[in-house]
Each structure stands twice: as C-alpha cells, then as structure tokens.
C-alpha cells in the first residue's frame, strides 16, 4: 500500500521534474542563432556548429561555417561579454572571411582575457 502511494506520487512529480530540467537546459544553452549577430545580408554563410571550452579560465571558441557563394565580401568578428553580459575588451576588428565558395571551414578564437564569460559571433557584408 505504501509503495503504491509512493509510486503514484513519483508519477505526478516525474513530468514536472523532466519539464523543469528541459526548461533549465534551454535557458542555459542559447541556440546558434542566438549567438550569431548578422549585421547585413549574410545568407551566403551558414553557421553549422559552435563550441566553446574554458582553458585555464579563458574562453576558447570554435565555429564551423559553410559558405554557399562568395558574391559578397563577408567579414566576421567576435564580441566578448563578462558574466553580467557587459561587453568586455572593446570591439574587435572585422576580419575578411577567406573560406572559398561551396567550402566549409572552422574559425577558432581565443578570448582576449579571463573576464570573457560568453561571446557572440558577428557577421557582416560590404
């Protein structure tokens, strides 16, 4: 009888726990679109994947890209934010994207300092 009651309670709690976990997972891991800022028309570039790790308290980022065509001159840069979401270390210089048409490639970046806790990948065109 006691076991049956516990089972009933578990059945009620289980969906709540699962949904809470799902919500927390969603909020802690922003999507690739959330972490990509497109300033102008940059549809030629598809962001396939984004990964980041902490190396001795400093953020290292790897972005996988696919370039459909090189009709436009596309540039990229990273914006770094501290744990309070304030931008740190100033704006980086725009760098020309040199991946060829129809090719895929990776861009790696190392944060300018240990204050950077998160980042945004920014894309723009001429």
């Amino acid at each position: 009888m006691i076991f049956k009651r516990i089972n009933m309670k578990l059945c009620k709690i289980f969906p709540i726990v699962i949904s809470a976990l799902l919500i927390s997972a969603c909020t802690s891991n922003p999507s690739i679109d959330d972490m990509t800022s497109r300033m102008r028309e940059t549809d030629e570039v598809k962001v396939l994947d984004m990964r980041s790790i902490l190396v001795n308290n400093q953020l290292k980022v790897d972005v996988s890209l696919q370039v459909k065509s090189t009709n436009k001159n596309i540039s990229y840069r990273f914006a770094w934010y501290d744990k309070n979401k304030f931008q740190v270390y100033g704006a980086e210089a725009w760098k020309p994207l040199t991946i060829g048409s129809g090719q895929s490639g990776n861009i790696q970046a190392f944060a300018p300092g240990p204050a950077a806790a998160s980042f945004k990948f920014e894309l723009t065109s001429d």
Partner: protein
Amino acid sequence: MSNKHFYLISLVLFLGGCVATTAPVVKYGDSKAVETVNTDFGSTDMQQIAETMSRSMLESPLVLGARQAPFVTVADIKNKTSDYIDTRAISNKIRSQLTRSGRVKFVVSISEMQNQVDELKRQNQSGLYSNQTASNMGNMTGSKYRVEGSISSIVKQNKNIKDVFYIFQLSLINNETGVLEWEDEKEIRKTASR
C-alpha cells in the same frame, strides 16, 4: 538688366555652384571595418596580425599556465618587405592587447629606455624632489622574455592581377637561456584584379 548681364551672372552662379559641389565631404568611419583600397599593407592587416599574435601568445602554456604574469620586453620587428611598414605600431598594438589581458607584464623596451633613464635622473639628480617620493635608481625590473619578429612579402603581378602575400612571424625568447618559448606566424593574401 540687359540679356548680356543676365547670362554673365548666370554663368558665375553656375560655376560657383560647381566649385561648391566638388568640395570634399568629410565623415567619420568605422576604424574596425575591412579596408580594401589597394593591396598595400593596411589597417585591417595590422589589426588582424595584432589580434592573431596576441591571442596565440596568450594561449601558449608559458603565458596561460604561469602563476605570475611573466615580464616581457619588445625587441625589434624587422620589415623585410619593399614597402614602408610601421612595425613599431604593430608591436605596440600586440603589447596593448597582451597588457589588457592581465596575463603578461611589459617592461620598457630599448626604444623607450632613454625616456626611462631621463626620468630617473630628473628625479634623483636634479635636487628638486624629496627622497621619500622620488623613484629610486637601481630598482628597474629586468624582463625574462623578449618578443621579436619580422614581416616579409612576396609580390607577383601581370597586366590584370596583382597578388601580395604577407607573412608575419613572432617569437618569444627566454633572455637567460635563449630558448624559443613560443612562436607563431600569420599569413595574409591580398589580390587585386581589373
């Protein structure tokens, strides 16, 4: 007013208008934007080199794994290209980015040494400063490492295409042992076609 006068005044006004419209338009631009005026070494090249080199050095085990920020000085960056390139501006930019990270400390370079000596002499030998506040002689910090490097280029061109290949190389050398602790290079290709 005669027709002759009218035409003359109209012509003067028209020419005045032409002069006014050809005056240069001045506006501020984004200093971080990609610059592609020609294949000469430009602001984007300098910014890319400084960023790549400083981040690569930060990632090296010597800097990233150090308990205390190592003391470094900037030595010579040689310009081996046929163009005029201000290599001091590149090394200063690298130094600024490394200093901002807080993981490296720089001591005065050879080119800044004279100013440092002059300041110490002014405070200690002019008789104008109190002993309590004057910076003492003989307490300068020696650097354990020095940064030096070079920039080279290969230029090829025909009637329609000009191709410039820049290679920037930077090393971090242990002053005491002469061991090359870290080294990296950045390649840039620029092509101009008609």
